[in-house]
């Protein structure tokens, strides 16, 4: 059955491309089928899932048994549905291209999250990247060709670095799938050149997730991409890198420090770059799309923090991996909703300059409410999905920590000792907490500029939202609230 999660969108994309089926409708139908299939597959009890995935007998080795697979598949199908339902293309041709691309990106992401074979895992992700580039180049905002070109080169290089890392790892472990690699680790096999492999993997996966300082492609690309593409890339596809790192770390278990440990302190510095540096960059943005793009880059820092905590605890920190999973799900839904609403704001006001809008809340209260909800979720307000993830991640960083002499050396060590002997992860956590304040500053300011105050010139143009617009946005909003009250821990 899992194979249908991949085949349905591909067939739908083929129908749209070759038979000129209506873009949005076909894509919505396919996304709805995927939604049902995906929810069934994810929620099915263990015994049924066994037969679901094995009876179809495809040699593609699709599985939901990996620790993060289920939650990522859930995220993918939810965002895909909202993305195709809320699509506002300028004409029928563009609508078809957008629908095909959205379906292909979704296929690639779902395929990667379900692949046990490491080469297929990599291949599916590459497949999803290509439509992203083409869509930004063809239908993007602003200097689209330049932006698409930068992203292509950046991610092409990152993919090659990643491929080298994965191949090196697989060749040295003599295992080409996650399952066999876990067996190799059990048998006590470890790669010889761990530091090289870890560096390649962190840079390769990291650049795909926009880890500082390899993040410069991301914000302009999201700002430029058409709304459904930005939703799917920022919300779903980007999580591929974190998914890969966490899955490998999980597989290596109590040997993960031996693999990634030599770069953990560097990783902490880089993720602080994400949270603080990119955070300040976000504050200075004057366009809504660029602000959201940067904010998405910034929030990746928290998930890397969970990864660093997991590595530092040598695989004993279950809380870190759970927090990361919940945060990935929450961030994916929130950023997708924000990009969806950005598309609607632009369609209404025909601008995204924060200064020229204002008072949109009085013209379009529904849009104001949804944007406020998504913004609050993004800041990390309790009872909304992001809070659960962020809180778990921050707590996990202190899990198992005891006041003792710090392991840090030089002046940092004396500072740490002053506070009762903090380790590098704990110090980084304290730095990263400042990110919550930064998020609050830019998100609340954006909300005030767009929706509050006197009605601005651009807001005058607003006419009204269609039913489908509201349905697509509410669809995501409901899950943000639902997962905030009742986090899907059963999927972990």
């Amino acid at each position, binding site marked *: 059955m899992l194979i249908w999660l991949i085949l349905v969108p591909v067939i739908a994309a083929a129908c749209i491309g070759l038979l000129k089926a209506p873009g949005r409708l076909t894509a919505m139908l396919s996304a709805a089928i995927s939604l049902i299939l995906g929810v069934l597959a994810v929620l099915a009890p263990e015994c049924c899932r066994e037969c679901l995935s094995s009876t179809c007998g*495809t*040699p*593609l*080795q699709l599985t939901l048994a990996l620790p993060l697979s289920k939650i990522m598949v859930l995220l993918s199908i939810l965002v895909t549905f909202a993305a195709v339902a809320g699509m506002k293309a300028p004409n029928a041709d563009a609508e078809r291209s957008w629908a095909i691309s959205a379906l292909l990106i979704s296929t690639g992401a779902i395929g990667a999250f379900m692949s046990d*074979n490491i*080469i*297929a895992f*990599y*291949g*599916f992700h*590459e*497949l999803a990247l*290509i439509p992203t580039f*083409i869509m930004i*180049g*063809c239908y993007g905002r602003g200097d*689209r*060709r330049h932006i*698409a*070109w930068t992203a*292509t*080169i950046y991610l*092409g*290089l990152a*993919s*090659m*670095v990643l*491929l*080298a890392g994965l*191949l*090196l790892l697989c*060749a*040295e472990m003599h295992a*080409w799938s996650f399952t066999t690699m876990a067996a190799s680790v059990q048998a006590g096999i470890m790669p010889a050149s761990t530091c090289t492999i870890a560096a390649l993997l962190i840079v390769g996966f990291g650049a795909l997730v926009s880890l500082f300082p390899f993040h410069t492609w991301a914000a302009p690309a999201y700002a430029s991409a058409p709304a459904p593409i930005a939703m799917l890339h920022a919300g779903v596809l980007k999580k591929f890198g974190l998914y890969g790192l966490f899955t490998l770390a999980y597989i290596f278990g109590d040997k993960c420090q031996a693999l990634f440990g030599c770069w953990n302190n560097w990783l902490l510095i880089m993720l602080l770059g994400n949270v603080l540096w990119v955070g300040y960059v976000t504050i200075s943005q004057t366009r809504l799309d660029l602000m959201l793009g940067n904010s998405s880059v910034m929030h990746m820092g928290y998930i890397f923090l969970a990864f660093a905590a997991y590595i530092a605890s040598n695989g004993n920190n279950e809380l870190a991996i759970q927090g990361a999973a919940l945060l990935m799900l929450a961030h994916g839904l929130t950023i997708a909703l924000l990009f969806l609403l950005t598309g609607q704001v632009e369609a209404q006001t025909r601008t995204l300059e924060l200064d020229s809008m204002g008072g949109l809340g009085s013209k379009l209260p529904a849009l104001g409410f949804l944007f406020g909800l998504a913004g609050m979720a993004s800041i990390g307000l309790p009872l909304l999905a992001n809070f659960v993830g962020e809180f778990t991640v921050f707590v996990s960083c202190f899990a198992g920590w005891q006041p003792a002499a710090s392991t840090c050396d030089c002046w940092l060590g004396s500072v740490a000792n002053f506070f009762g002997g903090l380790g590098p992860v704990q110090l980084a956590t304290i730095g990263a907490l400042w990110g919550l304040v930064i998020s609050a500053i830019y998100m609340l300011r954006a909300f005030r500029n767009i929706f509050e105050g006197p009605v601005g010139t651009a807001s005058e143009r607003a006419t009204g939202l269609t039913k489908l617009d509201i349905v697509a946005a509410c669809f995501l909003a409901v899950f943000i609230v639902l997962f905030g009250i009742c986090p899907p821990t059963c999927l972990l």
Partner: protein
Amino acid sequence: MNIVSTYTWCQFAPAFALVGLAALLILADALLPKLPKRAFAFIGAMGCFVASYFLYTASQPDFLGCIAAVATGLSILLAFDYTKICCESIAGGSNEEGTGEFYALPLVACAGILSLTQARDLVMLFVSLEVITLSSYVLAGYFRRNQGSIEAGIKYLVLGAMSTGILVYGTAWYFGMVGTFTLGHEVVFSAIKGGVASSPTLAVGFLVATAMLFAGAFFKIGAAPMHVWIPDVYQGAPTPTTAFLAVASKTAGFIVLCALVLPFAPFCVPGSLIGKLFIWCFALVAAATLIIGNMGAIRQTNIKRLLGYSSIAQAGFIMVFFLNVNGILENLVGQYLLAYALSTLAAFYAVAMVRTQRGSEEIAAFRGLGKSNPRTAFLITVCFASLAGVPLTMGFMVKMYSFVAAITAMGKWAGICWLLPIMVLTAAMGFYYYFKVIRAMYWEQAQPGHKALQVPVCTGIVLTLCALALIYLGTMPLLVSLG
């Protein structure tokens, strides 16, 4: 002195058949001047395909020869759609006079490649190689009304003659050092047994001979530093000839290189001085080829020149396989060449179509194809994506094998670990310049006056088949062997 041949006639049956067909075509050209030349192209191509079929179904399938024969057939068939340009550039106007040999000569060259695959000594190797090269000289300069073609012909002749000289000189040294022309383990073993220390003159002389023989093969495959002829000749030569040089002639080069390298297999183990020398030589050449090919391609705006540099770059990736000399070397090289042949030939068909209808070989001439010819543009995209190594195409699979080969070699010789970063960087450069064509097709507006292309039947079929084959062969191994 009795001369005992180590060959049998039937080994060369496909080669003789092709030469016979070429002779018949040339005779027909003289005796039946009314016969349309397209018939010649069709018959010649069919001859190649039949030959490749027999090679494939033979008791010992000859994979590389098969690729070369199919590639020759396809490059002759390319001339089928290209007759308009052929007539303009040979006789002027729409006069078909004097174009017959253009379709017959590739058959002779192909016969050379097929006999090359059977060669087990240097004389046969040299003779076969010259059959290919001499026909190629004529073909490269065949468009006598086209300055570029004449320039290409002269450059190829001068540089080719130099490489032949090196090859002959190397052969003479080889004979002088070991007293035989035969290639084999035992000859290498007797020459360098005990290394340089035990018989210094013999060993050093033998290494000089081998180096010169390698240089001759490097010229054919376009490996640095013997690559200088490629960009100019590829750009200037008639497109069908360029396709032949880029695929069939390169395959011939790799057949020679395999024949020269395989006898060294027992020496390529860690700890052997000869092995170390050999591996370092190949690693350096591969790295230089990768860097030159990829860096050179970045700035190109002419598609044929771009494909020329791309062929150097791809040769660099194939060279990496030679770091592990073992039984599956020929198989890996063959797989890479197959992926390269399918995508490059399809690319040349696209170039020929655009050249015939839009009169330009610049990348800019591809602009707007995504809108005006969406299906063709998609097929071309698949071919260039495969050249770049995008997953789910065969180009990705073979590039991955090349990476794995480098990693395996690094496991044995830690000294060459710098090769992997170079491969990663150059592969990423490939994304840049191959995507230039895709970018032109999808992101740019068509130039004024450029209408939608009429896709000729032959081009349509070949493009579709190549793209389907690339996707099929790129996904099947994932589903079957790795899965």
